[in-house]
């Protein structure tokens, strides 16, 4: 059974059809990249899946269960971890506390008034911190972390509910070029060790072609191509709308 199944999803803003009848599925342990030119509907599609937008039509199923139109905090209960294009962390907390709060929520203890958070969930948090390579930063405030480390922290937080699907919106945006590979290697570790599936959007084609098992190309709200990185690279239509080359432009001039 697919971890995520999107069936004939559509969403319009005003008169503009941002997403028009998109269907695809993500299998367990699969890494799927969603690419397309700006305005193709990637963000809208992503936000429908993560619960930030309510689709006009179609269905979204997670591990068989219908989650269409559910709010983000409910989607999370279905085993979805998220990272954002611009990192969102708790800046008044340490790295460890960021993860402890998420673990408390996973444990259903977010409204607990009893024992202090203190060292609760500490061992589990440290295991995740080690996994993303932030051990030396455990007691640092999230506000002090360099951007690359914030991205790693987000990934650790996203893993706290032991998700079956990671939704990553441009996982390497804003990172130095040499750090991008390391970040995606870490994602690959999560896939290999925890069996999580990944759906991500990305502008960096090196990341897409190096770390996706399958690529879905959107244009004007429609899926125009779907296949392995090699197939997508060779697809004439994809080259025309998205990848392009300067050679082609020079030829035209």
């Amino acid at each position, binding site marked *: 059974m697919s971890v995520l199944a999107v069936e004939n999803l559509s969403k319009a803003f005003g008169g503009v059809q941002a997403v028009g009848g998109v269907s695809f599925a993500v299998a367990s342990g699969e890494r799927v990249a969603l690419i397309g030119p*700006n305005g193709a509907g990637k963000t809208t599609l992503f936000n429908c899946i993560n619960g930030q937008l309510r689709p006009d039509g179609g269905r979204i199923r997670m591990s068989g269960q219908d989650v269409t139109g559910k709010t983000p905090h409910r989607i999370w209960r279905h085993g979805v971890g998220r990272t954002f294009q611009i990192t969102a962390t708790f800046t008044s907390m340490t790295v460890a506390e960021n993860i402890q709060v998420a673990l408390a929520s996973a444990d259903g203890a977010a409204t607990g008034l009893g024992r202090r958070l203190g060292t609760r969930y500490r061992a589990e948090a440290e295991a995740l911190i080690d996994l993303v390579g932030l051990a030396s930063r455990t007691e640092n405030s999230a506000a002090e972390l360099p951007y690359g480390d914030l991205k790693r922290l987000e990934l650790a937080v996203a893993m706290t509910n032991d998700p079956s699907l990671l939704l990553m919106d441009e996982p390497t945006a804003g*990172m130095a070029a040499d750090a991008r590979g390391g970040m995606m290697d870490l994602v690959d570790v999560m896939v290999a060790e925890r069996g999580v599936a990944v759906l991500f959007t990305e*502008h960096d084609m*090196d990341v897409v072609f190096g770390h996706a098992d399958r690529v879905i190309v959107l244009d004007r709200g429609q899926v125009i191509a779907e296949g392995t990185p090699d197939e997508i690279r060779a697809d004439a239509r994809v080259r025309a709308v998205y990848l*392009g080359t300067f050679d*082609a432009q020079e030829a035209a001039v």
Partner: protein
Amino acid sequence: MSAPAPALRLAGIEAFYGTAQALFGVDLDVPAGSVTVLLGRNGAGKSTTLKAAMGLVNVQAGRVFIGSRDVTGVPSYKVARAGLGYVPETRRVFAGLSVEENLVVGERAADAGVAVWTRERIFDLFPPLAGMRARLAGQLSGGEQQMLTIARTLMGNPRIVLLDEPSEGLAPVIVQQIAATIQTLAAEGLTVLLSEQNVRFAMHVASRAAVIERGRILVEGPIADIAADDSVREAYLTP
């Protein structure tokens, strides 16, 4: 024969965000009429250098000259009036204003001897915008917004245009259009300084390049030389 004074000169710029230092003595000359590209990775200080020229960050040491005029520490609206046009990285169109109204905000009378941009010429340069004059800027696509920010800046009739990562986040097809626009501006006699990570794009549009890393300029010169220098490419510009 001495070289003519550069259109824009940065000398020993040190800039800060709060207490964090971003630029550590940037020296950069942009010759009049050239297209100069500032190359470097994310976080190397490209955007900060452009903002420093524009008076948008806290410059604590060094000087900025437009021609022979010292504009260090001058409020950014006065820097703009001195002939510097700024096109920001994230486009920043006025989303609630129409395309036409965005152009009105940028409008400013031209100084003597500067190419004069009228709305008609702007719409000739960016034909897609002509058909959507009354549309709200927030409803435009990313590529159209990039055109609009450039157009808005041109309405101020600048001598020098600063473009902060004009290709970022845009589909390659749109990037090619932006490249053509930059070539047109250069042909009009404008001086252009742009920041880029995309070396292919940079080589396509620029004649000169400077490489910035950790808040300092490492090398500066004709772009062909810099792009040909394998050690520079390997160390600072990949991929």
